[in-house]
Each structure stands twice: as structure tokens, then as C-alpha cells.
């Protein structure tokens, strides 16, 4: 079954590589910057690269913040990638204190100083909870990361995978119909494309 997947365009980052990643995985995804169009999609992806505050301002200016929350309320699947995942949290400490979408209670914090930041490159991921998005992915597989801040959900029940860079952090989250990866599936070669395929194949309406 092939559902309509939307990629939210709010002017932050490399949307085309996410679109091409879904294409390579065998699914058509459509880039959209129209708030009124979001509800037409069976599943949505919120990508993003850049600063948290800028991203939230853009979402607010477009009215996209409210539209995303309404969309999540319908129970359909929503995937955040990198900054997109961070935006789901309550608060970020990137350049002061910034309010996020608040879908996932928790904070976005800077990685520790004792390691190179940005955390750039391939790192292994421990699967802490089996969810459909990990289908076909072995524990401790490597994925491509580029980030300086990490998500710290208040409730560990959100975490589906962790990685280690200076400290252990949640690099994958998921509950009900909201999912997120700190790494870039669209830049993580075969295994990353498998995750995009897993997302595209999840039935609308969420699972666990």
C-alpha cells in the first residue's frame, strides 16, 4: 500500500535529499509549504537543519506550528529528522531558551565540551525499544549524525534508541504516532533508506 507522504518545507535545510531518499526506497514523497495542504497527507516528515530558534519562528510565521499539532492529533504518523525531531520537545537551550512544539516533554541541550562538536559522522545506535521503524536494522548499526544539540526527553519511555558522543543521548524517539531521529536516515546509505521505507510502510494511525 502506498500512502501519500508529505515533507514539510519551512525553509530550513535539505528537503530534496529526504525526498530523493524516499524515492530510492520506492516511495513518492511530496514537498509542501502549504499549511492547508498538510491534512491531505497520510504521513508527514518534518526535516530541518539549522538553528532551533529560527526554525520555530518560521513555523510560527507560517502557522505551521499549529497545523503540525493538529495533524498529530489526528493520529497519523509524523517523523522528525535532526532539527525536526528537536522541535518536538518543550524547550531548547540553543542560543538562550527557546520554546518548541511541546509534543515531547523534555529539553534540547548542548553536547558536552570534552568531545568535538558538532558531532559529525557515523556513530552506532543502540536499539532500546523495538518499534516498526527498526525493522531490518540490527542493534549497534551505524548512522550519519551532524548536530551540536541533543534531545533529553523527561520520560525515557519516549526513547527508542541511544548513541554516545561525550555522553549517552536519545538519538531515536517514538510513541503513538510521533517519531524522531537525530541522525539522518536519508544520508545513512542502505540502512537509512530502510528506515524511510519502514516509515512509509507504517499504516496511518500509528502503532505502539
Amino acid at each position, binding site marked *: 500500500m502506498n500512502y501519500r507522504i508529505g515533507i514539510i518545507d519551512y525553509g530550513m535545510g*535539505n528537503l*530534496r*535529499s529526504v525526498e*530523493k*531518499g524516499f524515492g*530510492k526506497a520506492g516511495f513518492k514523497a511530496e514537498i509542501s509549504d502549504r499549511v492547508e495542504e498538510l491534512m491531505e497527507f497520510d504521513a508527514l516528515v518534518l526535516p530541518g*537543519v*539549522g*538553528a532551533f530558534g529560527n526554525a520555530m519562528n518560521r513555523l510560527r510565521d507560517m502557522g505551521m506550528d499549529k497545523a503540525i499539532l493538529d495533524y498529530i492529533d489526528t493520529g497519523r504518523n509524523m517523523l522528525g529528522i535532526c532539527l525536526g525531531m528537536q522541535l518536538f520537545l518543550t524547550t531548547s537551550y540553543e542560543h538562550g531558551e527557546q520554546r518548541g512544539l511541546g509534543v515531547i516533554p523534555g529539553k534540547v541541550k548542548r553536547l558536552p565540551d570534552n568531545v*568535538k*562538536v*558538532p*558531532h*559529525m*559522522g*557515523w*556513530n*552506532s545506535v543502540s536499539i532500546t525499544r523495538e518499534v516498526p521503524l527498526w525493522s531490518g536494522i540490527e542493534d549497534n548499526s*551505524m548512522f*550519519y549524525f*551532524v*548536530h551540536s544539540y541533543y534531545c533529553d526527553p523527561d520520560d525515557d519511555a519516549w526513547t527508542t534508541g541511544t548513541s*554516545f*558522543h561525550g555522553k549517552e543521548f536519545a538519538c531515536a524517539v517514538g510513541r503513538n504516532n510521533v517519531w524522531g531521529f537525530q541522525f*539522518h536516515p*536519508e*544520508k*545513512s*546509505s*542502505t540502512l*537509512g*533508506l530502510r528506515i524511510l521505507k519502514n516509515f512509509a510502510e507504517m499504516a496511518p494511525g500509528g502503532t505502539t
Partner: protein
Amino acid sequence: MLAKRIIPCLDVKNARVVKGVNFIDLQDAGDPVELAAYYDREGADELVFLDITASHENRDTIIELAGRVGDEVFIPYTIGGGIGTLEMIRDLLAAGADKVSINTAAVNNPDLVRESAEKFGSQCIVVAIDGKARRDGGFEVYTHGGRTPSGLDVVEWARKVEKLGAGEIMLTSMDRDGTRIGYDIPMTKAVCDAISIPVIASGGAGTLEHLAEAIELTGCDAVLAASIFHYKEHAIAGTKQFLRGRNIEVRL
């Protein structure tokens, strides 16, 4: 643990891959998109495309290439060579490049590093530094493909671009590039010790031992090589097995 990255470099001219020996003798080594997709399948961690044409009429060719690579390649890739304006950076990133590397233009106009990092994010701004040993010690930055001495000290310049917002340094030894006698260990170590952003060692790789040595002795985050991969002397998988055998963390 974060893996050390193995990065094949594809020098491109008129959308074909070439590799210069000390930047003079060029040999054709294939179609860049095909070669890049091959490297993705083989397990390369990242790719760098260096446009050595570096003439202005070539602008659209390299942007088009950046787009075509993204259709077939699902690992990060950097485009460099002759990039001098914010518009060019924007167009390459929009076409699908994950990062751009700036070299001569950064030396001529350091504000370009700051402005591009502010506008597009540090993670996509790589500053390429071409360095050469000075007779009296230390290392000097060269520009224009290694032809023009800039008077800048390599380590000082690396520190400066880090402050300006560069997300990564691609450090090439002009003395070693194309010689296949190994990376410039002292220069690479000096830069790695001085800054806290990732450093890619480049120039001089001729054997797998050279890759291991650079990682073990300098603290670099990635090693870049061209000829040892292009002519299939060493497959990426075998290279990584070799490094793993040396207890170096790699993605297998």
C-alpha cells in the same frame, strides 16, 4: 563510538573525474555520479567532489552535477573548487550538496566563512586549507590550487576559520598531494591539536598503512584519498577491515 571516516575524493573537470599528480598530469577515471554511487555501495562514509576547472562558465555544470549526485548517492557529499560567493553556496546546497568547501575565497575574504556559516549553518561550511612546509619551519597556506603562497600560517588560519564558524577543516598537504608517500603527519597533527572542529587529512595517501598512520598519529577525524580507491588497488571494505584490525573504529 564515532567512527573515523573514509572519504574518497573525486576531482572533476567538465563533469568527468580526473586525478592530478601534483596537480599537473591528469588522467580520466570515469563518470562522477557512477563512481560516487559505486563508493556508496562499497561503504564509503562520505564523498568529496573537487571541481578543478574552477572557471566561471563552469558554474552551472557543477551545480547540475551536485543535483545528479543526490539522485544516486545516499551518503553525505561535499562540493568544492572555485566557490566564492554566498549565491554559489546557496545554489550548491539547494541542488543537494550537504557541504561546500571554500578555499581561495576564504583567504581573500574571510567574511565569506562567517556569513555562510551564519546563513546556512556551520555544519555545511568546510574550509579547505592547502598547506606547504616552510623552509624555516611551520606551514604556509597556499591558494589557487596550490600555486600561490598566501603568507598565512596554516595553524593560525585554521584557528581563525574555526572562530569564523567553519564546521570542518579539509587539510591538504601540497608537498604530499599526488606523491603517494603518506600524509604530512606533523602538519596534520599541529592543526588537530590547535582546533576542536573535525579535521579531514588529505594529500599523499599511497597505502593503507598511510591511512592508519594519519588516524593514529594526528587525531584527525577523517582521511581523504583518491588514487588508491579509484584504480581499485584497495576496495573500501578491505580498507576498513585493515583499519579495524588496527583497533580503529570504522563503519563496516
